């Protein structure tokens, strides 16, 4: 108790230079944006339209708290408890067990359907309930979802203000870290309700959904955080099957792992051109026109490293896994056994199926689960179908950054359309991420078409400056002398 008082005192005096006390939300990525979490024992406001994710964020806040030694109360003014529990189950959150163990208390604050108002009233019973319950279960967190509903019975603004004041004052003294949610539409800026909350809350988080090129993206944005720094951008987030996920690039310092040892591309003559092969944890781009053999070049590498017992995640944005496996067999590359053995995972995905965040989080989850040494993305040119050039850039930069931080080799293919411009070859402005560029092309002779391979860039190594002919035979990729 003495300790708690001291903290309150120093923060209230405003003189203490000490950073304010925070509690982590334990929500994926959110604490990074909030620079550690929500202000402890203070009030945070979440503002968002219906469907923007306020309730989920509130539920996750108490759920994660309950699992980290901080019992919590969830007071919902809109949803019946039954549907709250069901929704929680869809994220794998077992509310009933936590309730039984006294780590979570759910309460439905909906107004009874048959209620008559006669004269002035107060919210004291509600406060009495939560205060009694909070003491009983030693709660640390409280969420009041759609609190505004509770004020619908009050018709005089003066009364609303008085009740709100009492509520927030009670919260401030309660020692609970509170999260209140509010819909902006019903209480536009300038309205008493919103102004009051904005000024009383120590932290305000806005949630919204934006449609960009027909793909909707949820975004969150911290509008205010008293006494703390915070990420000031708009951060995309998703509501995944595990709850809220966001992968903010808040600290974009480069933490890339240095190159590891040489690894064979699976084609000895190409290794020679590269001065000894690819580097582990580097990023290799294979650019070229359709049909030049980019997928085969990747698959040859995949076969080689899988033979050595290493693991590969192959992200295929253009072909289904079955089609991919089948098509490369004609050139003597057999991936099926490795897929069956678990060394190779081919993830077929339609780029336009979801937004950048969903793709990114799905892939990051897969990488963390599978722990591959190498990742193939075939093809990055298809990524633009996610939601345009900008979205594609966003996706690639963040995914490649993630891979480089973990020392994972990435091989990207990029389909060019024959302009041979450097920008198009390196693909969507990601050239700073790319360490090696191999370019494949055709040259049309009188009676034949010749395929050509050249190395445009190879960081950290001397490399061949030649343009070499190559052929695709039934036993694979052959570079001619």
């Amino acid at each position, binding site marked *: 108790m003495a300790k708690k008082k001291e903290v309150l005192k120093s923060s209230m005096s405003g003189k203490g230079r000490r950073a304010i006390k925070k509690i982590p939300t334990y929500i994926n990525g959110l604490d990074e944006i909030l620079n550690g979490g929500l202000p402890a024992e203070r009030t945070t406001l979440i503002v968002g339209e219906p469907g923007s994710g306020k309730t989920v964020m509130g539920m996750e806040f108490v759920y994660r708290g309950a699992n980290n030694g901080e019992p919590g109360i969830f007071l919902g003014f809109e949803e019946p408890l039954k549907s709250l529990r069901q929704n929680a189950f869809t994220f794998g959150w077992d509310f009933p067990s936590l309730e039984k163990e006294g780590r979570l208390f759910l*309460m*439905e*604050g909906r107004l*009874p359907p*048959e*209620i*008559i*108002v*006669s*004269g*002035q*009233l*107060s*919210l*004291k*019973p*509600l406060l*009495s*309930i939560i*205060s*009694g*319950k909070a003491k009983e279960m030693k709660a640390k967190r409280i969420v009041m979802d759609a609190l505004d509903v*509770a004020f619908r*019975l009050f018709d005089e603004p003066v009364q609303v203000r008085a009740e709100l004041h009492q509520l927030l004052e009670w919260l401030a003294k309660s020692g609970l870290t509170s999260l209140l949610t509010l819909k902006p539409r019903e209480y536009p800026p300038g309205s008493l309700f919103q102004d009051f909350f904005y000024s009383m809350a120590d932290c305000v988080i806005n949630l919204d959904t934006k449609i960009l090129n027909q793909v909707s993206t949820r975004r969150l944005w911290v509008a205010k955080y008293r006494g703390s720094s915070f990420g000031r951008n708009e951060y995309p987030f998703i509501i995944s099957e595990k709850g809220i996920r966001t992968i903010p690039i808040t600290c974009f310092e480069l933490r890339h792992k240095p190159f590891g040892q040489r690894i064979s591309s699976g084609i000895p003559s190409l290794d020679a051109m590269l001065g000894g092969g690819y580097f582990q944890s580097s990023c290799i781009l294979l650019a070229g026109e359709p049909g030049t053999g980019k997928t085969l070049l990747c698959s040859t590498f995949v076969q080689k490293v899988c033979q050595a017992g290493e693991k590969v995640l192959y992200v295929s944005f253009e072909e289904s896994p079955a089609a991919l496996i089948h098509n490369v067999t004609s050139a003597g590359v057999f991936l099926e056994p490795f897929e069956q053995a678990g060394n190779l995972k081919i993830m077929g995905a339609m780029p336009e199926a979801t937004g950048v965040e969903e793709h990114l989080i799905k892939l990051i989850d897969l990488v963390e689960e599978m722990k591959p040494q190498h990742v193939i993305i075939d093809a990055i040119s298809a990524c633009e179908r996610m939601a345009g050039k900008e979205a594609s850039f966003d996706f690639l930069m963040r995914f490649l950054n993630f891979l480089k931080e973990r020392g994972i080799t990435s091989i990207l293919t990029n389909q060019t359309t024959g302009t041979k411009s450097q920008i198009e070859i390196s693909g969507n402005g990601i050239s700073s991420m790319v360490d090696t560029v191999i370019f494949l092309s055709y040259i049309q002779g009188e009676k034949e078409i010749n395929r050509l391979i050249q190395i445009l860039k190879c960081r950290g190594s001397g490399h061949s400056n030649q343009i070499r002919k190559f052929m695709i035979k039934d036993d694979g990729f052959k570079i001619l002398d």
Partner: protein
Amino acid sequence: MKKERISDKPRSPAHYHFRLFVAGDEINSRKAQETLHQICTRYLPGQHKIEIIDVLKDYKAALTNEIFFAPTLVILSPPIQTKIVGSLNDPQKILDVLGLAKTKEDE
């Protein structure tokens, strides 16, 4: 008509059972208590029972009865679903809910 019915068939003494949830001695709660007593004395003499529950002392009662506002009047008998919240500044509303007409001297 309704009043006649009541006088025709005298009910058991505690036929009207009220439970009033109050928040300590705050002014709205006090007013509600006064009004309820007045109504009972005038319209339901000898056939009412009033329970007063202070939610500040007994939060569990508020929780089990889902009382979030004070004062709240719950009518247990006759069984009436409607809850009346507020300082009960309009006795007519209670009479309406109970299905009682005003006596002549009121009019």
